[in-house]
């Protein structure tokens, strides 16, 4: 079964706008990671946030983690057409669980 659930399932925005995706999970974790996937093939690691961290930045990416609510958000600022992809959160409970993903479309 999958532990993480992303919301929304699909998101369509104009280039230059910000995109926010949310992830909820069920059990305690050591860390939470966000991945991007283009065209249904290999995933690319974006950012890792540990359970004792609340916010992390990497370039145009901002990730927050609220362990009390068991949720995380990924913000992509100033989106570009190249950001079009599916985005997954993954948690490291006893296994490594991926959510169902958010499909982001950035319209040029």
């Amino acid at each position, binding site marked *: 079964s999958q532990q993480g659930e992303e919301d929304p399932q699909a998101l369509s925005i104009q280039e230059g706008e910000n995109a926010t995706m949310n992830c909820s999970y069920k059990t305690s974790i050591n860390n939470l990671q966000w991945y991007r996937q283009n065209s249904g*093939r290999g995933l690319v690691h974006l950012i890792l946030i540990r359970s004792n961290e609340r916010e992390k930045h990497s370039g145009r990416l901002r990730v927050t983690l609220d362990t009390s609510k068991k949720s995380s958000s990924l913000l992509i600022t100033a989106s570009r057409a190249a950001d079009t992809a599916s985005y997954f959160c993954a948690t490291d409970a006893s296994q490594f669980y*991926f959510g169902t993903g958010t499909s982001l479309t950035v319209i040029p």
Partner: protein
Amino acid sequence: GAGVSQTPSNKVTEKGKYVELRCDPISGHTALYWYRQSLGQGPEFLIYFQGTGAADDSGLPNDRFFAVRPEGSVSTLKIQRTERGDSAVYLCASSLGTPSDTQYFGPGTRLTVL
């Protein structure tokens, strides 16, 4: 250095046949993972190796699926008596040590069972 590689990139087989999928992890990574991804879904965990041994194989769906990593580097996922429901992209990933480390993914093998 080289990333994770998987071969073949595509495999078409007939129902009932046996298939092997290969994964070459990043050199020096002790942990290796296999996932299966169906269309529109997130990757589904199958098995995790730490060195040569399977540390967690609880994601393997049934006894038709088996994976080995005899020398602690290359891994082979083996599927016996394939069924149409086995059609999916099979992803391999490796990491330095544990599931808490960043996992680096290969491009996947798209398996189609006719």
